[in-house]
């Protein structure tokens, strides 16, 4: 292996020999918090009141804050750059945080993977990452929820509500978690009526208000009459869709206050339970699993209460399917199924249960979704 001075590995090795005391000095100077007390740090990529992704996490953090013996420190609008690395270290060095929840997808590689090895006694819990034992440090964990199941249930409500047989999805970027949501939304609707199609429009950004509004209008112009989304803050999509007379399915958090009459239901995170569980485990001296996943049954996600526009038939199918999902092992992606370019995704009898890790590297849109992944 080349030992060029610019090589990170090379330096790590020689750095030890050079007794790089300065580099590790802050470690030994960690402020020690009072016995039994735990300081937990939460880092958000956007504002924590965005009606969406970050708010869902901040609501979880608020639940942790209410626990006895726990101090919560938070930082919002932290970019997926050196910023987040230093925010983590700042929480560790100045606040004595020993359990960190950097919540954005993009924080994982390389940022958490860069910082975690420097603090082997601390715990880094990341939302959405794909932790694997042979590649990643053992003090890093990843957790996520089967929110696609929520979008499947959204789809069932949408399938009953749509009159045009066309539903719409405003999406940020074509990444696996988003694609799974789009596919689940359509397949839920097709469980009601197989002729339904779903138009997707990618905005290309996690948060860009005017473009999200334009995308929503384009969906409505194209005839979609039930709309959901996967962007960081769904407020603009929900308000715009409601003003166009479309029904809404929420995402990330409960958006029903924005348009109570048009809101059917929504797929929400339930981080309060996940976070309080993890903090309790840590305080009791236990260890959190490195790879944690859960769905409706485990309380990782929940559905918004069904709105007034949901028909009795819809309600019945919704509740029946939800009960089915609660039993575990439910598969949304199951054969026979093709993608929207005609390739076979699953043959007759083949099924990808919600727990299947293969779903987390999804790269296709299923037949019936109008849109493309690049």
């Amino acid at each position, binding site marked *: 292996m080349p030992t060029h001075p610019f090589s990170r590995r090379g330096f790590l090795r020689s750095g030890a020999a050079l007794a790089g005391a300065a580099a590790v000095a802050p470690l030994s100077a960690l402020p020690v918090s009072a016995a039994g007390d735990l300081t937990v740090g939460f880092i958000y990529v956007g504002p924590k009141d965005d009606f969406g992704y970050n708010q869902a996490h901040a609501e979880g953090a608020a639940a942790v804050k209410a626990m006895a013996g726990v101090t919560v420190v938070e930082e919002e609008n932290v970019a997926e750059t050196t910023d987040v690395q230093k925010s983590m270290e700042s929480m560790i060095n100045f606040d004595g945080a020993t359990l960190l929840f950097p919540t954005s997808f993009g924080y994982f590689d390389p940022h958490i993977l860069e910082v975690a090895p420097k603090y082997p006694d601390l715990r880094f819990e990341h939302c959405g990452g794909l932790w694997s034992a042979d590649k990643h440090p053992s003090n890093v964990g990843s957790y996520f929820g089967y929110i696609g199941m929520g979008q499947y249930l959204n789809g069932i409500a949408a399938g009953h509500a749509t009159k045009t047989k066309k539903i719409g999805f405003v999406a940020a970027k074509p990444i696996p978690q988003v694609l799974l949501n789009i596919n689940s939304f359509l397949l839920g609707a097709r469980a009601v009526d197989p002729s339904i199609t779903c138009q997707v429009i990618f905005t290309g950004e996690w948060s860009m208000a005017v473009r999200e509004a334009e995308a929503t209008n*384009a969906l409505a*112009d194209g005839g979609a009459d039930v709309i959901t989304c996967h962007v960081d803050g769904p407020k603009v999509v929900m308000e715009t869709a409601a003003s166009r007379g479309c029904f809404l399915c929420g995402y990330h958090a409960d958006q029903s206050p924005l348009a109570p009459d048009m809101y059917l239901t929504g797929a929400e995170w339930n981080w309060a339970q996940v976070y309080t569980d993890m903090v309790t485990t840590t305080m009791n001296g236990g260890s959190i699993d490195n790879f944690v996943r859960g769905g409706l049954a485990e309380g990782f996600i929940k559905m918004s209460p069904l709105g007034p526009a949901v028909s009795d038939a819809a309600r019945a199918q919704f509740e029946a399917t939800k009960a089915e999902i609660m039993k575990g092992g439910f598969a949304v992606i199951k054969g026979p199924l093709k993608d929207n370019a005609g390739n076979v995704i699953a043959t007759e009898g083949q099924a990808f249960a919600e727990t299947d890790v293969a779903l987390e590297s999804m790269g296709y849109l299923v037949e019936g979704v109008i849109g493309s992944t690049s």
Partner: protein
Amino acid sequence: MTDLGIWAVPLAILAGAIRVSTPFLFVSLGEVLTERSGRINLGLEGTLVFGAMSGYAVAYLTGSPWAGVLAAAVAGALFGLVHGLICSLPRVNDIAIGIAMMILGMGLAFYFGKPFVQPVAPDLPAIPLGWWSDLPQVQAALQVNVLFLIGAAAAFAMWWMFRATRVGLIIRVVGDSTDAARAMGLRPALIRTLATAAGGAFAGVGGAYLSLYYPGSWNEGISSGQGLMAVALVIFARWNPVACFGAALLFGGAGALGPALQSVGVSEGYYLYYAAPYVLTLGVLIATSSPHRAMTGAPGELSITK
């Protein structure tokens, strides 16, 4: 609902032009007023964002969106006034002050705007001008906001003002030659400051449109550079208010291209379609600029065209 097929694209561009253009229109009108007096205010992005915040906050607190618009105009005028006063000092760079005021405006807007992200403020009213059509797409496209109509009227009024009124003449003289203005007994610094303040008020109203109508909510990402782009549109429009109206419509329409193409099935390379407004603006700038003569319509005292 009727499927319009490929005709959905031009309709979406028209609809987008009407929906999206208003902030560009107001900011560029404000900038025309300022630049015609011989100053450039590059900080209207900050004014726009602060206008969006203050408009939303006041509309929420009073329950009246028009009170919000008024508040945004007043806040914008204050920002313009500060910019104008600072630039009246000798050897202060108006472009740099603009960038500084942009940072300050955005900082203050985000700082004071925190408590107003969650509440829902009342929207500005729109007039349904599409009643004659059976197509819901056309009806939706022709939901025209009152501010759009006011902006269009203001564009023509400002054009007339520069052409035919004494105030317009004074602003033009000050903008074309400080010396000539002094010889006429005018006070260039005062007039420029007032023009910048008035320009700021326009930009503030543009911001209020963003937060109170389309997309109609306040958050830190509400503006994606509309205030900065509007400054580019002024050069594009050759300092002519009526041309600003056209430029704003064009830019708004080009912005609708990305979503519209995806909705009719042209879904690959959407980032490139989203860049269309910028490419278009740059192309027109390149095509219409010339190294040999000052740009037609450019005020003589303007720092960026000297």
